[in-house]
């Protein structure tokens, strides 16, 4: 949807033509879609008098029967009298079979480029196309089974037809034998991600690109809009499908009926009812001007002159030739993630252990463990971890427990317990990525499920932000710290550590490190070395001529002399030849700078 991003008006013209009314018409509905798609290839600036004649007077309500007639009329006319200037075939109402309104997602930076689709070929008007080609297009669309196919076909067709029309082979090849375009086989410049789009459409449930996507999307809480069961499809697609920058997945996900969408569709419908083909031969001017001056109370001596000049304007390029359509609905917002709370599954599996597999389809309840079983599972994992210290196994088991809780929509104290447990195991191992995931989930869970460990994990969160040097989030965290939390042993320790760290007070920092409560030291371990380096540089720069190793050991929180020595020698620190227990600051400073 590269092109669609270029100009909202462009895409809206396409999208807007679909209306919600279902209707059977004599002509194949697919042809309408094809025609519009093709019309977009051959967009030209229409600017002629005759084009003016096509201006429609939109009417508020009109019978569909009439609309059909108009359409037929127009179609007949167009076949026989080609206009010198090409106009969009939109100025008639063509009722479409009910279908979802498609939105094209216009992406935020940096993927938006303003490009002008430059189609200047005058010879590409649909009425000029060879009949065989038109039939080919019709066949293409008839072959489509669903909307995704139509999307793909449309894309493929655009490319193929444009090429053929431009090089003239459209008139020479045998369209009857032309194979239908496949989105995958033609690298389509308009849809650079079409292979992935295809993949995205293959199954209802997509592979989760990362565990994080699943977990974080689930963790975000309940759906804010109620949606029916059928709607879930589209949204699951959104959750699970690869987050390719193309608009397709979001586009298809918007197909579910939902309050806001149906509202948009109604608007489209209303617009369509109005964009009706008027009697093509009536002069448009008289009707329009009627509305224009009504209600003006003052007498403008120049009114006549103005009226004339306004009338004259209709013959210049500035008035719109086709009906104005506001392309508002093309701004589709990033979708909120779906929550499993919409329809939780109740598991029946009784196995205590379970291998972790990413979800590729809706889970079978027989493979999901109910909470009663999961409690046993948790105990088993804990025991296993204690005795065997097998982190990959423990992690996998914990993830599968988390997954089972997620698909069953369980967000209780037990869930909190599970995440806390996994977080602690991750901490012990030093897996800060996994820890962070769990920690984020806990933050959300704590809102509804207070736990006695809130202080502990809040402290860990603060320490994590120090690790990532994220002062913005530290500030935010500080804002929300209640007095009760501040008094908590872990939190107050973390706060003091943060203060010491912020001021470069390494002395206090390492003192606090030695006194870290619970599992905080595992987290601090993650950035201890970084802080030691900074402190060491400061020490070597400011002390002269030498410094006892013992002092460094106590200042930098080393438990024993040996570990300190190992650290120092690893950095190329030099000692006094006369007294090896003293560090030569000047030369060591130079070595540090070099390392």
């Amino acid at each position, binding site marked *: 949807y590269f092109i669609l991003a270029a100009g909202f008006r462009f895409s809206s013209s396409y999208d807007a033509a679909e209306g919600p009314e279902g209707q059977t018409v004599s002509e194949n509905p697919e042809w309408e879609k094809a025609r519009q798609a093709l019309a977009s290839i051959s967009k030209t600036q229409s600017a002629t008098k005759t084009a003016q004649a096509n201006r429609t007077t939109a009417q508020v309500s009109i019978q569909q029967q009439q609309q059909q007639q108009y359409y037929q009329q127009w179609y007949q006319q167009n076949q026989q009298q080609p206009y010198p200037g090409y106009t969009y075939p939109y100025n008639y109402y063509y009722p479409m079979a009910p279908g979802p309104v498609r939105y094209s997602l216009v992406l935020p930076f940096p993927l938006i480029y303003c490009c002008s689709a430059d189609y200047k070929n005058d010879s590409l008007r649909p009425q000029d196309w060879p009949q065989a080609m038109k039939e080919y297009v019709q066949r293409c669309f008839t072959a489509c089974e669903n909307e995704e196919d139509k999307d793909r076909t449309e894309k493929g067709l655009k490319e193929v037809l444009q090429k053929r029309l431009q090089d003239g082979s459209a008139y020479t090849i045998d369209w009857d034998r032309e194979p239908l375009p496949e989105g995958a086989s033609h690298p389509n410049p308009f849809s650079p991600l079409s292979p992935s789009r295809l993949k995205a459409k293959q199954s209802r449930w997509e592979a989760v690109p990362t565990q994080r996507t699943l977990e974080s999307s689930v963790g975000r809480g309940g759906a804010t809009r109620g949606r029916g069961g059928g709607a879930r499809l589209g949204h699951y697609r959104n959750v699970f499908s690869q987050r390719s920058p193309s608009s397709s997945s979001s586009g298809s996900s918007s197909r579910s009926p939902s309050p806001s969408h149906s509202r948009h569709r109604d608007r489209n419908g209303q617009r369509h009812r109005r964009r009706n083909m008027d009697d093509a031969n009536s002069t448009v001017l008289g009707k329009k001007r009627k509305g224009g001056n009504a209600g003006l109370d003052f007498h403008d001596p120049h009114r006549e002159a103005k009226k004339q000049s306004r009338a004259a304007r209709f013959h210049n390029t500035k008035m719109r030739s086709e009906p104005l359509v506001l*392309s508002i609905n093309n701004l589709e917002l990033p979708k909120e993630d779906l929550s499993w709370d919409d329809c939780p599954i109740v598991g029946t599996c009784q196995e205590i252990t379970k291998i972790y597999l990413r979800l590729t389809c809706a889970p079978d309840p027989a493979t999901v463990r109910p909470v009663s079983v999961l409690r046993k599972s948790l105990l088993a994992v804990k025991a296993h971890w204690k005795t065997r210290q097998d982190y990959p196994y423990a992690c996998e088991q914990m993830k599968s427990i988390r997954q089972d809780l997620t698909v069953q929509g369980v967000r209780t104290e037990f869930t909190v317990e599970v995440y806390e447990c996994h977080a602690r195991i991750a901490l012990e191992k030093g897996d800060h990525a996994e820890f962070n995931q769990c920690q984020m989930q806990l933050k959300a869970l704590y809102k509804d499920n207070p736990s006695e460990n809130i202080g502990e994990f809040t402290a860990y969160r603060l320490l994590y932000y120090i690790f990532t040097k994220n*002062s913005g989030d530290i500030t935010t965290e500080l804002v929300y710290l209640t007095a009760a939390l501040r008094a908590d042993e872990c939190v107050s320790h973390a706060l003091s550590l943060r203060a010491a760290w912020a001021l470069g007070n390494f002395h206090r920092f390492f003192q606090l490190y030695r006194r870290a409560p619970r599992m905080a030291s595992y987290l601090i371990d993650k950035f201890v070395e970084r802080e030691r380096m900074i402190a060491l540089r400061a020490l070597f720069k400011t002390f002269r001529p030498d410094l006892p190793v013992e002092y460094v050991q106590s200042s930098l929180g080393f438990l024993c002399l040996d570990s300190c020595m190992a650290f120092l020698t690893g950095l190329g620190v030099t000692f006094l030849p006369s007294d090896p227990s003293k560090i030569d600051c000047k030369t060591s400073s130079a070595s540090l700078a070099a390392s």
Partner: protein
Amino acid sequence: MAHITINQYLQQVYEAIDNHEGSFCAELLSFKHPHVANPRLQLASPEEKCQQVLEVPYDEMVAAHLRCTYAVSNHDFVEAYKCQTLVVQYPFGISGDYFGYIFSSLPIPQPYPLAHYVLTVIVYSRAGIDDSKKWGMLFLINQLFKIYFKINKLHLCKPLIRAIDSSNLKDDYSMAQRVTYKYYVGRKAMFDSDYKPAEEYLSFSFQHCHRSSQRNKRMILIYLLPVKMLLGHMPNHQLLRKYDLMQFADVTKAVSEGNLLLLNEALAKHETFFIRCGIFLILEKLKIITYRNLFKKVYQLLKTHQLPLDAFLVALKMMQVEEVDIDEVQCILANLICEGHIKGYISHQHQKLVVSKANPFPLLSSSS
């Protein structure tokens, strides 16, 4: 304005355009103008009417605007914002403040992702086109800054800053826009600990901010003050009183006297205010300045270049710093030397700080 019909309204728009009455036209598209409350103009589908009366592209603009008034009357800000994106896509030779009319009275709705999304769409889709379309850029970018600061994603400001810096129009925008821009860029520099540029930006902002916007000046000052203090310039009481920023009074006094105790008390007392403004962490850094001032006093009292560490320990204890020991003194001194606030070295053996004979405590503005 509240009673005119749609046709009358459109007629007025048409004539304003025809007669090149830019400001009147802008009013007719502004949310500050009473016409937006007129139910006869709040149409769900005004396209057809607009198209009858107005030329391209005004018909679309006005139609989107009217649709927007409809959306706002229904409190559908999502829709309203979407309409606005259409309205602002059209360039005019008028200054960027024109766009201010459009966006100003629409509150940035709570779905920040929406506003951010919509605005980035506009900003990035407008990039690279001719100059005339860039007039509204600065305004939009300022709006985006506002959002980024609120949602705490300052790194997103960087590409926007780069865009404006490379633009050749940056000095031609209205002063109001430039003041706002520099305010945000200054705050970002503060956040990145670039205090000198931060001071420049925020000072510019403060000086050029219109005399009558007390509120804005106060806001700028909230960020300018900590930066200035870190660079060694303390505000006087007059200034603080004038802008109702007496929270800084004790802080200022404490820092200039080297009074750690008072500083800690002052920071604790107004902690909520400082944290909410996002300046708490910066003000914390003033402790370092305070240590420097305190130790300078010790130096001045002892009148020697070889200062026993004990003296500093005594000073700190006087300030009721908890659990302080000689090791911590050395640590603090080491930091001060590293940052250039003290010229000298520490002799561990003799437990003394040896300072340079010439200018051992350089001016803060030069060492920061």
